[in-house]
């Protein structure tokens, strides 16, 4: 699918900007809408910097602080033949626009018997670790996955962020693209130029190993890779799978890996209770029960709101609980 030839080292933030630029350039039906996204500010994190100047205020469209109106306008414009890319500044604010996303974007194709597709992309930012507190940090992906009709994407590399965002924008279904702000500036890798696409529903084996599979996505891919590197010195071989897309889910890659290692730990930043790890765990148990050397481990954040104080926030995050879960399963 890729027409790319060269690559450049980019941060995830730059890669997302690049994807938006490519999409706006290549299709006049693509447009952005969201709060504060025009120049000079170019969005809360500056992701859109230069785009409203390049493509005009009609196509990089500032909205009032009105999440229901933003999401609804995006749904309607998608019904009207556009490919809107809506920004909900922070993932917690999706709850403000939930009716439009859950009851309309997700369902209009099905409820109409397939005659009103909703080719909409919602980009949103979130993640704990930066002291934003309880209402600006939640990972709410499981709420989205629980609504049939939505696709859900969480990148962990700059190249994937670009390739998955372009695939989302040009997909004919509503896609929620979750950006973890902890990765915007810290992740930097080679990003292909041009209209580079990574297909939705395809996981990536981020590190090959033989003793245990860590199944994860987003920021926790970095945590799992660091742990795999650390434990390698003890002769423990961890495989790390970066799901990239949570819905559709690449179960083939998961089952192939776990059938090989016979041990799996699922890791995510969302709180453990009711998290996507529960679904992954259930699917692995159903498919591979007789082959498993032990029960699938689940590591997520503490079952609390995200706290503010750095001591509490670090304790909330799953990072320090991955290694004990791995060691417990290895026995």
């Amino acid at each position, binding site marked *: 699918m890729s027409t790319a030839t060269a690559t450049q080292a980019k941060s995830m933030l730059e890669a997302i900007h690049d994807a938006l630029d490519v999409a706006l350039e290549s299709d006049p039906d693509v447009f952005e809408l969201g709060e504060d996204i025009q120049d000079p500010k170019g969005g809360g994190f500056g992701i859109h910097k230069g785009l409203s100047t390049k493509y005009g205020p009609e196509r990089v469209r500032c909205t009032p602080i009105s999440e229901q109106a933003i999401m609804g306008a995006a749904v309607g414009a998608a*019904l009207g033949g*556009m490919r809107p890319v809506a920004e909900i500044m922070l993932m917690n604010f999706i709850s403000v626009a939930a009716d439009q996303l859950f009851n309309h974007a997700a369902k209009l*194709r099905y409820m109409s*018997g397939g005659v009103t597709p909703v080719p909409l992309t919602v980009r949103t930012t979130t993640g704990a670790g930066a002291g934003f507190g309880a209402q600006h940090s939640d990972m709410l992906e499981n709420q989205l996955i629980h609504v049939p009709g939505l696709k859900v994407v969480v990148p962990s590399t700059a190249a994937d962020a670009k390739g998955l965002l372009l695939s989302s924008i040009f997909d004919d279904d509503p896609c929620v693209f979750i950006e973890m702000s902890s990765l915007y500036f810290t992740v930097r890798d080679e990003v292909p130029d041009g209209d580079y696409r990574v297909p939705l529903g395809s996981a990536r084996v981020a590190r090959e190993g033989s003793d245990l599979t860590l199944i994860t996505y987003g920021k926790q891919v970095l945590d799992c890779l660091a742990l795999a590197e650390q434990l390698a010195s003890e002769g423990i071989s961890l495989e790390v799978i970066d799901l990239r897309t949570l819905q559709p889910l690449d179960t083939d890659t998961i089952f192939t890996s776990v059938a090989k290692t016979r041990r799996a730990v699922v890791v995510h930043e969302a709180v453990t209770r009711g998290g996507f790890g529960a679904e992954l765990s259930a699917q692995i148990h159903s498919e591979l029960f007789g082959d498993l050397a032990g029960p699938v481990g689940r590591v997520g954040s503490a079952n609390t709101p995200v706290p503010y104080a750095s001591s509490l926030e670090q304790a909330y995050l799953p990072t320090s609980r991955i290694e004990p879960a791995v060691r417990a399963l290895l026995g």
Partner: protein
Amino acid sequence: MTTSELSIDLATRVALYRTAARIQAFDETYRASMMSGKFAGMYYSPRGQEFAAASVAAHLRPTDYVVTTYRGLHDQIAKGVPLRDLWAEYLGRAAGTCQGKGGPMHVTSPKHGLMVTTGVVGSGLPIANGLALAAQMHHTDQVAVVNFGDGASNIGAFHESLNLASLWKLPVIFLCQNNKWAEYTSLAGGTTVEHIADRAASYSMLGVTVDGNDPLALYDAAGQAIERARRGDGPTLLEAVTFRFCGHYFGDPGEYIPADELAAAIAADPIPRYRQRLIEEFGVAAADLDEIDRAAQAEVDDAAEWAFEQPLPDVSELTTDVYSQETAR
């Protein structure tokens, strides 16, 4: 009558009656069918509000967009959705507008410009803005009309939508069918605002209140609002004051509606009243109107008979249309 109402041609005057007659025949036949036990389901009758749909849709082209609500039969018929397709969807049959997957509360027929029927009060307004935005960005002169009740004007989405439509000068008409009852609560029980159209002033938008049971007055007002939107002069909040004759849903006896109010509304039933006016003021032959009534009932009976013979969707359809690619499930 205003000068512009006087200029409405006879064919249009009769066409408004015909649309209302088709709506009434469908509604009454469908309710009779449920009453007889032939079919069971959720249904929200628009009886009494027929002209709120007929007089507005008369100005619309097939390519114009309409968004409506669960009480949407009149809007669906007025926008041109064929009665067979509609009846089949209302029965949940494979031949329905949505292959039976939507039902009365979610009828959709984009080829007739009926883009969304929502079951969530007030949710249509933000979506209509988006449809209007698509028209604006594609540089067409399409307009979007979104229908909702007086109750929807108390929801946040209403206010966000009016604000945004005004800000972006969108070609959208917010048509509040003020039927005086928000589910089981009276207009006055939900807001101190007497005229919903007054709320437009908060968004520097034109707000117009019109008698929604006067087909010609509403036709005139809707024509102006739609023309303004087509010209690129922005949105209008148009309030069509009408009355809901039935309970909230089929089976709700509506005993909370004061008997004298309901009796007065039914005594002023807009359909026979307009029929009389066509005969007395405009010289239409009663026999011609009888023929319209007969044809409407025949069309409805044909649609019903046909729809009842259509099969239910095959169970293999359960999991189709969730995503664009079946593999994404």
